[in-house]
């Protein structure tokens, strides 16, 4: 009933140090754990039924390139044993501009990695400092040609709406990043997450978030500019040059199955969603002592699965057609969510045309307020 997973995510939890806004599953400055981590991954891979054919691989973090060269090639070797990339595959590795060198890039390139997602965040020194990032703009400029020479696709992450940032400053930052001619962009406005250093500073009044109106203007400015210059705004925060969408991420949004490994990683196989323990040390202890690293698992009823799929599918700007919804879920879209659907269409937040539902610009801006009524 569930198509086999043909995508895999591997979480590498190491960073040089923790950025102020970050609450990811990360351990900062613990290189002594790298070896144990690789062993644990190997143990986890052994639970697979055999080498798995995949269309996409995604090595995220953390900072995967924080691994030392030798460890990085070990990681690639493990992956190549566990998975068999199918022709036309996409293999992404996340990287940060600091600490990247030719040696590591060559290792990745030779292993078959063909897409790099680079955590640039900004090219403005003040902003990078505020975000407590380890790199500076020149690091990015130095590294980009190296990436271009080795990988088919390069994506940049950018953050907007950091405390004190003006609309004009953001527009300049965005233009500078676009001028680097990446193939893909992910643009996030800064959020204050519990568990991050910024959260505490916000509570203590030491950080002043950007006004909502400004944040909205920043997002719209970016969307407008990118749309006008031929970018494909294909998901809330993601933009691609033609043929450069992140196929791996599309697997998530389409509600398809995927494997996942490493601390805090979530997999979705046979309708089960399982999340590994978020603490890196607990993860290591469990896996290395032969226990399951899974901390939470759930399987949704078909109706709830359909609703969930719908929501995440609608976050993709192409929307979803009734026909596709029926094929995927066996359910009628209008039976499930007809009432809120009509309401949001009336309010101009959704568009219902030619049997296809999609977000309008107005809907995109406030879409989180719609989802509760679809779930």
């Amino acid at each position, binding site marked *: 009933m569930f198509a086999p997973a043909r995508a895999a*995510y591997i979480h590498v939890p190491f960073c040089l140090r923790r950025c102020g806004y970050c609450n990811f599953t990360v351990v900062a400055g613990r290189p002594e754990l790298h070896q144990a981590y690789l062993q644990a991954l190997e143990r986890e891979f052994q639970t697979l039924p055999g080498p798995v054919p995949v269309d996409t691989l995604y090595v995220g973090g953390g900072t995967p390139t924080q691994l030392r060269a030798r460890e990085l090639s070990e990681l690639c070797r493990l992956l190549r044993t566990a998975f068999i990339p199918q022709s036309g595959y996409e293999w992404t590795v996340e990287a940060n501009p600091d600490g990247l060198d030719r040696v590591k890039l060559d290792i990745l390139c030779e292993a078959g990695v063909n897409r790099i997602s680079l955590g640039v965040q900004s090219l403005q020194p003040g902003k990078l400092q505020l975000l407590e990032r380890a790199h500076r703009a020149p690091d990015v400029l130095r590294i980009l040609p190296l990436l271009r020479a080795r990988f088919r696709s390069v994506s940049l992450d950018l953050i907007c709406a950091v405390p004190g940032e003006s609309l004009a400053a953001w527009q300049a930052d965005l233009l500078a990043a676009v001028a680097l001619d990446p193939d893909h962009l992910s643009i996030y406005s800064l959020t204050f997450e519990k568990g991050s250093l910024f959260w505490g500073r916000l509570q203590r009044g030491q950080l002043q978030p950007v006004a909502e109106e400004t944040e909205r203007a920043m997002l719209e400015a970016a969307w407008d500019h990118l749309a006008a210059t031929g970018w494909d705004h294909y998901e809330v925060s993601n933009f691609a040059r033609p043929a450069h969408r992140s196929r791996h991420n599309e697997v998530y949004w389409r509600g398809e199955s995927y494997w996942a490994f490493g601390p805090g990683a979530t997999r979705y196989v046979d309708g089960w969603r399982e999340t590994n323990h978020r603490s890196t040390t607990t993860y290591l202890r469990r896996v290395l002592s032969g226990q399951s690293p899974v901390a939470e698992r759930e399987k949704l009823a078909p109706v709830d699965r359909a609703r969930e799929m719908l929501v995440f599918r609608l976050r993709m700007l192409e929307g979803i057609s009734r026909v596709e919804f029926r094929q995927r879920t066996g359910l009628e879209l209008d039976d499930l969510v007809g009432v809120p659907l009509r309401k949001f269409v009336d309010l101009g937040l959704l568009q219902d045309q030619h049997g296809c539902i999609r977000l309008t610009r107005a809907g995109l801006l406030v879409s989180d307020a719609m989802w509760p009524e679809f779930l």
Partner: protein
Amino acid sequence: MIECDHIRNFCIIAHIDHGKSTLADRLLEATATVNPRLMKDQLLDDMELERARGITIKARAVAMQYAQRGELFELNLIDTPGHVDFQYEVSRSLACCEGAMLLVDAFQGVEAQSVASAYAAMEHDLRILPVINKIDLKHARVDEVAEEMEQSLGIDPSEIIKVSAKTGVGVPELLQAICTRIPAPQGDPHGALQAMVFDSHYDEFRGAITYVRLMNGRVTRGQKIRFLGGGTTHEVLEVGQFAPHKRPCHELQAGQVGYLVCNIKSLDMVHIGDTVSVPGEGAAPALTGYQPPQRMVYCGLYPSDGQDFSELREALEKLSINDPSFDFQPETSDALGFGFRCGFLGLLHMEIIQQRLEQEANIDLVQTAPNVTYQVTTRQGEELEIHRPQEVPDAGDIVEFRQPLVRVNFVLPSENIGTLMKLCQDRRGVHRATEYISPTRAMLRYDLPLAEVIYDLHDKLKSATRGYGTMDYELIGYFPADLVRLDILVNGTRVDALSIICEKADADRRGRAITRKLKSEIDRHMFEVAVQAAIGSRVIARETVPAMRKNVTAKCYGGDITRKRKLWAKQREGKKRMKSIGRVDIPQKAFMAVLDTGNDKK
């Protein structure tokens, strides 16, 4: 059979916490009515809720045997409810007594409730037995309190009996005084049966238990009786007295207090204040003073979205079997759908019922703000009783609009008089009297609209006096006032459940306060929400809940999906507990927002 001249019927009137229950326990012990070791503390108020709130809600009666100098007396202690909501029940209980013990705490001194109840007792011509309790307290100020009683109530200090309900000191003297000072009941045991119903309660197995005081005649097991007011006839299955548990006897006669069990399946056939006599020609005249229950406060109760209307009805029916003084009628509201208009004796009564609904019936309710009962005379000469703002006719059809006024007694430290006077003036109070009952404490009397009193005056008094002020009030009648219906519109739609009735001169202030409050209660929507207050078609206040400008999660990858779905599903549950009006989700508690009086105007 005991004769009238050896019967004493009395009640204890006291401010809350002055020791009424404790003293009642001591009397039961001293008369060996209960064995002290078996006694559950404070027998007289035994309902859970009363315990929780420390208020005697329902009256009870206990018969005690007491021998004095070889003579046997029957002492009937009739317990009276201690809250203004039950004023009528109190008055009926008083009508069954010849004497009242006025119990005052030796430390706290005279409080508003002591004053109000003492006046009520005096109006019923009861012999007052002044008692100062808690004389064992280290900080007892017996002499000062005696002086307060003299100043405020004209009590002769030499008559005051000093006791400690805790240690039992003074209790024998008190019992003696009951026998010697309280008059015996008058009445003719050979006359036609005439008895006052002063309370009732419902027993799951035996039906209604009717509490009576016999004025004349006698009542015997097996005979037929008739409720003169209610017009129903029943056979008496059992007569008896409470001692303190039911103790059946052969008959009760003039002067005595006891109970009747007939086969009555619902309490609403037993009316407090009604007269029990015999069917047919030989019946005695009805006693005076009977009134149907007066519901002073009304509110709408609605099942919250997704809850069952019929479940609510069943729960209300069940409660009303036990408490006929509360009333409910189905009503519909455009905003809230099907629900009930419920009438209560007062605000405390309303809270009790609501609490029971939630606790006993486990029902999630939307309650509209309470309002008092109004009267309207229309141009066509009709007299309307208004229980909900929606019933108010068009302004042009109203000749006279009347509201209930109450006389409020405040007892408070003299230093807070200024603050209290301001509070009362802001609420259109008319000052009637100020008396100093001691060098540091004063009693103020104001006539105030009941509507102004029930909402928050008690809280305001407490905070103005750091808890030392007390108040009590009684209804003095309906008086004309310049009243209007204030409507609330949400995005142009009138929300009937949010309308209120208020003084025209206050309308602007109330309108502004309500719209402001609603603005803070209503979450931002995907569109702008306008909240307006209007009289007729004239808008007098407006607030806008701005549209949500940005609400979109940026990052949603594999691991975020479950977390996000759970978050959104939780928000959906939250939304379900709101009422959607038009497309605006209004949280339950916003329906109480109209209570925000915008007081404390500068």
